[in-house]
């Protein structure tokens, strides 16, 4: 690989010290004879000086080497990609046409990848910072970086007798399967402290597990068969753009589409009807709809008889405690609309609800998901093609986790308390932890956990695939907590706010410089990620870092780390495959994926098509003993929302221009979305004397941000909307400065920790 890409890489190295324009690239390529004379189509009608056609753009399919890649971001769509490489330079990317889901297209983020690879802002070498947050970065060698890290680890072990003083936090920066080698690196050193759980979707995962025994959604491509679609708290127009064509097609065939969301989203604008629900009242609304099913005798009695556990108790609860008028009052949606839509939804099959992740980011989020699931179940749409309560799935994730599964060195001492799963992807294959385990801390309370940690305290933190200071909660408390740490090491692509607080930064490869394999938690496709260009600068992939650290620490003290000291990223990828994966996808070998993405061979596009549920009763559980065991109501029930702690609801959902703190920092993205905005309703703007473009302070008990306002009726008058993003080093904007670390209700059962009530936040707003 090195040899194949050698010359191209050298070209880049020579050119990239400075800003590289398109023209520079072309000149560089022309100089090496790479650009031949380009054909026009010859039939020029007008234009006297036009004998030469411009020499930019697509150069013909023979001009490129084409590689298969996979977008590894934390996104529904997880697009298969093609990368077009010429002389070792990534020229452009496209969607993999083999996937019917993405159909040859990417999103605004995916198309920005070439700029991310060749961004002048990339971290190029290992560096150390003399004084956190000072920006006094000094380039160091990999040897020095690894030596510092290894010696600190050995010191911790010496001091504490265990490695529980070494903490690791990682989440969704790269979902490539080999990236679980970061966890593997930790396991191969011993028993460490892990920040477990997920800030994303845990309450909903637990809810669906209580109801059905797993989180398992229909194939999104089968939404074309839906005759009624409710998109409840999801916004696919900006964060699952390839799902929209199925919704459009269903609509074209006559389906009605209703969007329920606190914000009049772009998805709502494409619907037949939009309901502006009060945040946190989704459960009340769903229960009101369920009650109306009973009143009109529209429930699917045959299905419920056969498949519903605890249904009669649930029905009694609805009759006793829920009315449509009450649901209308709670949710802000008129009773007349609730009744009509409920009747419409129940009168056709298949009908489906897509439950977004935003709606469960509440202190009652899991309970709300259970209520919506229950409504879908009552209409008999679970297990139906084109039906279902769609949330997500991990059905296609049955890899070996070879990079993840590593044994602790002999004699390692660990944690002896009770622990749960180490995140939603924990397959329960966690090494040989017969006596000892890792120490699990809540990923969503990183600041508090570090502040509270004793015996031993956390002294060193390793961060990978995560931008703690942008994405974790109560930023100001994190800064405090970090002061307790002797050493912070971050592996990343850019000098993000977490890197700013690090002592050592390790430069990582982009997806184009690495091998891995990716699947989705939404669709059922699998894509290979081939190395398309040689690693630039001194970058290393996560598993190469693990391997290098293993070699270093073992050279200092033999037997300190079991991670293989020599690895080949491609071989490591191959080791993730097994017969189960091959059989599920109907392929003979991973090499089949070099011809394009493959889709799982599903018995049905519907989950639960045989009505054999994964619950203890084997049925759909309106009443779940496991839920009770985890401290929740056994029965699907209304749960009060969090009380407001400031004047206005603050919503901080995903932006279309970024994936959490990724992408928005690129200059290409700034061309389309130059700055953050706070969206407020004209009524609130009048009350506060604000007009478009005014700078405001948005503040609450957790912190304060300043930004410009956009006066817009897409938001209700009691709400402030700001999209989360990291705008790059020169912009301190971060919505999570305003988000406290209050937990959502569920998540502990399947992901090890509850989620965060990201959308149960409140703030004040004033002209700055």
């Amino acid at each position, binding site marked *: 690989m090195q040899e194949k890409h050698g010359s191209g890489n050298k070209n880049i190295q020579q050119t990239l010290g400075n800003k590289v*324009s*398109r*023209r520079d690239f072309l000149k560089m390529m022309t100089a090496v004879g790479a650009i031949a004379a380009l054909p*026009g*189509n010859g*039939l*020029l*009608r*007008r*234009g*006297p*000086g*036009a004998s*030469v*056609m*411009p020499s*930019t*753009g*697509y*150069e013909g399919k023979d001009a490129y080497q084409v590689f298969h890649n996979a977008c590894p971001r934390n996104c529904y769509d997880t697009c298969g990609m093609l990368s077009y490489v010429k002389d070792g330079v990534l*020229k*452009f*990317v496209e*969607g993999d046409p083999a996937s019917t889901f993405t159909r040859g*297209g990417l*999103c*605004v*983020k995916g*198309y920005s990848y070439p700029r991310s690879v060749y961004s002048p802002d990339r971290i190029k070498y290992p560096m150390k910072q003399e004084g956190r947050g000072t920006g006094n970065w000094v380039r160091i060698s990999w040897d020095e970086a690894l030596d510092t890290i290894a010696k600190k680890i050995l010191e911790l072990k010496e001091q504490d007798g265990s490695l529980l003083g070494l903490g690791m936090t990682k989440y969704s920066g790269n979902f490539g399967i080999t990236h679980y080698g970061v966890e593997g690196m930790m396991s191969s050193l011993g028993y460490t402290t892990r920040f477990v759980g997920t800030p994303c979707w845990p309450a909903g995962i637990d809810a669906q597990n209580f109801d059905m025994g797993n989180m398992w959604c229909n194939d999104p491509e089968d939404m074309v068969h839906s005759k009624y679609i409710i998109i409840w708290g999801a916004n696919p*127009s*900006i964060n699952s*753009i390839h799902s*929209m064509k199925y919704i459009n097609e269903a609509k074209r065939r006559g389906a009605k589409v209703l969007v329920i969301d606190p914000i009049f989203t*772009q*998805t709502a*604008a*494409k619907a*037949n*009807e*939009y*309901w*502006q*629900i*009060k945040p946190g009242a989704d459960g009340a609304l769903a229960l009101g709809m369920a009650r109306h099913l009973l009143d009109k005798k529209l429930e699917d009695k045959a299905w419920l008889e056969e498949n519903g556990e605890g249904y009669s108790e649930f029905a009694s609860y609805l009759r006793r405690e829920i009315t449509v008028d009450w649901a209308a009052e709670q*949710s*802000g*949606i008129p009773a007349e609309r609730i009744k009509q839509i409920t009747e419409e939804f129940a009168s056709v099959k298949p009908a489906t609800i897509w439950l977004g992740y935003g709606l469960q980011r509440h202190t009652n989020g899991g309970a709300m998901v259970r209520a919506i699931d229950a409504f879908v179940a009552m209409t008999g749409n679970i297990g139906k093609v084109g039906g279902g309560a769609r949330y997500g799935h991990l059905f296609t994730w049955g890899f070996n986790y070879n990079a993840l599964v590593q044994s602790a060195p002999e004699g390692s001492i660990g944690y002896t308390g009770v622990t749960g799963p180490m995140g939603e992807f924990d397959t329960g294959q966690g090494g040989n932890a017969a006596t000892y385990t890792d120490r699990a801390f809540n990923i969503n309370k990183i600041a508090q956990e570090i502040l509270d940690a004793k015996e031993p305290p956390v002294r060193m933190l390793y961060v990978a695939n995560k931008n703690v200071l942008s994405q974790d909660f109560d930023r100001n408390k994190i800064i405090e907590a970090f002061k307790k740490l002797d050493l912070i090491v971050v592996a990343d692509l850019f000098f993000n706010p977490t890197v700013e607080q690090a002592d050592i930064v390790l430069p990582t490869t982009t997806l184009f410089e690495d091998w891995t394999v990716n699947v989705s938690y939404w669709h059922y496709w699998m894509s290979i990620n081939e190395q398309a260009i040689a690693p630039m600068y001194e970058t290393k992939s996560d598993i190469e870092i693990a391997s290098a650290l293993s070699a270093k620490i073992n050279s200092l003290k033999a037997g300190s780390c079991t991670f293989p000291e020599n690895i080949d990223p491609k071989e490591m990828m191959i080791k993730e495959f097994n017969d189960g994966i091959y059989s599920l996808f109907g392929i003979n070998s991973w090499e089949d994926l070099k011809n394009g993405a493959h889709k799982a061979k599903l018995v049905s596009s519907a989950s639960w098509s045989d009505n054999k549920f994964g619950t203890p009763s084997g049925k759909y559980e309106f009443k779940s003993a496991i839920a009770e065991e985890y401290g929740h109501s056994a029965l699907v029930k209304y749960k009060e929302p969090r009380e407001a702690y400031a004047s206005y609801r603050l919503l901080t959902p995903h932006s*279309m221009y970024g994936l959490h703190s990724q992408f928005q920092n690129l*200059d*290409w*993205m700034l*061309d*389309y979305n130059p700055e953050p905005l706070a969206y407020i*309703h004209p*009524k609130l703007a009048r009350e506060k004397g604000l007009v478009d473009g005014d700078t405001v302070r948005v503040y609450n008990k957790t912190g304060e941000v300043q930004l410009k306002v*956009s006066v817009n*009726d*897409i938001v209700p*008058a*009691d709400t402030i909307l700001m999209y989360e993003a990291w705008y790059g080093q020169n912009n301190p904007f971060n919505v999570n400065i305003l988000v406290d670390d209050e937990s959502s209700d569920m998540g502990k059962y399947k992901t090890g920790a509850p989620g965060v009530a990201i959308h149960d936040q409140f703030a004040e707003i004033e002209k700055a």
Partner: protein
Amino acid sequence: MTRYAFSVNAELCIGCSSCGMACKNQYNLDPGMVWRKLYPLSEEIYPHKDRAFYSLACNHCSQPACLEGCPVGAYTQREDGIVVHNEDVCIGCRNCLRNCPFGAPRYNEEEGHVEKCSMCWQRIDEGLLPACVQACPTNALTLVDLDVDDVSSTVQYPPGFPYRPDLEPSTRFVLPVAPKIVRRDV
């Protein structure tokens, strides 16, 4: 005969901007340079701010004002209607920027020349779709042949788009539709 044009269906457009970035990706455009972007419709045209768009680049006019006013012949129009700009011939006088009412030509300060959408003629010649069209996840942006395809349900001069029949812009439009909206009382 073939007469290529972009068709912009604002009813299907989800405002995802994939078209614009696909263009930057295909041409490796310099930071600051944008050949295609979404223009949000004003509230007089569509009742909600930032919720309906026209995705616009060059309209590849039949009577291109850019070409007419170019002193050095940097513009060419192909038989199939595509108006191509040649950066190597361009002297950066910006006459075209002044003449085009659609804002399609863009001046690249660093390079001292104009740039604009070429409808990816190189891709079209190879039987591929323009990068922006291929990118569109909802088929809101399509490539049509005005000599062959039925465009009777489209409009040439939608509200908010400059009315310039003298230039005969080739882009065709379908207007957006607003849903029924149930708001809560606050």
